[in-house]
């Protein structure tokens, strides 16, 4: 699998390294970004699969899809990587482990991976690094999209994988001056 698509350095803006907007080529931390364009072009359905492409990370899945999936940054323990969703820490349990098995890439804009200690900005769990996942924000002209479908995949080993997906995505922008309600949602069901 190839490495993440390199964004033009003059345009890519990252947040996770300093908690503020900063060009990727000026970030003081070592950062990789996997964008929604990568998700679409490479048909990446789960965040764990996106993280497999990032240098410095080891993704370990204990079995088939849905089983415990852990990420190790630069060889440190799994709970030493702080995972954030739009700035909200989402590590699980008292130990702060993170199971990526249930995390799909639907409605995600990009994933920023910061390697190296980030505890000053993100707390003691960011000893090895931080992974921040950003959802998409509504923008542009009013659009309404509704897709629904069902797909069944069957391979030679007779295992059956069913996928049902209902995707609702809508962006509403009021024409009245100064008022901008924005909503975006997506629901996915994989058996």
């Amino acid at each position: 699998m190839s490495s993440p698509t390199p964004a033009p350095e003059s345009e890519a803006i990252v947040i996770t390294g300093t908690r503020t907007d900063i060009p990727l080529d000026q970030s003081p931390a070592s950062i990789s970004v996997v964008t929604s364009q990568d998700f679409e072009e490479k048909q990446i359905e789960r965040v764990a699969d996106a993280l497999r492409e990032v240098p410095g990370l080891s993704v370990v899945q204990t079995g088939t899809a849905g089983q415990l999936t852990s990420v190790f940054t630069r060889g440190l323990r799994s709970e030493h990587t702080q995972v954030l969703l739009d700035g909200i820490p989402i590590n699980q349990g008292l130990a702060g482990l993170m199971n990526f098995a249930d995390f799909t890439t639907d409605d995600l804009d990009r994933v920023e991976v910061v390697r190296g200690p980030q505890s000053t900005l993100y707390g003691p769990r960011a000893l090895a690094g931080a992974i921040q996942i950003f959802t998409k924000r509504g923008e542009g002209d009013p659009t309404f999209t509704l897709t629904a479908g069902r797909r069944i995949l069957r391979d030679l080993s007779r295992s059956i994988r069913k996928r049902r997906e209902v995707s609702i995505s809508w962006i509403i922008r009021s024409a009245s001056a100064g008022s901008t309600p924005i909503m975006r949602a997506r629901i996915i069901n994989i058996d």
Partner: protein
Amino acid sequence: LTNAIADIGWSPDTTLRIGTLITYSLADTGNPNTIFDPKPLDNFLTERWLIGPHIDWQPVEWWDHHLIVSYDHERQLNDPNQDGFVGPTRALFERTQVDYQNDLRPTSWLTITSGFFYSRLNAGQERPFISQDFGPQPRFVSDHTEETGVFAQLTLKPIAKVCFSLAVAD
């Protein structure tokens, strides 16, 4: 696996955005006994939902405020046996978090970032039990952790393509 994620926001003007992040996840995994019998054994069910209201406010071009309050609730049910004698292990996690950050940009080459963080996690677990009227009975154990922190950071960009960042936290 069922997943839903939504980010709903409203901007009355260009300086303010009020929104909330909502996620829901339900995963029921297990090891099938054979490929002809897909009913999972050794079940592990995880259900999680999160709500994270947030406010982004930029009263002037050189001053940003970001406030996030979040609550998430996760329950896990691990049922390794379906023999009817040993019941499942249940666990429950509830977490409340507050994160505030403000960014001052007095000049084009200096950014001063500061903020605080608070988190409280309540965890509880019901141990596996034997389904019987006497002897060992279900036991519920619980614990909680609290985290508080403050941080400040200076980011200097004296010349193009050069960035110094200095941060402290407690």
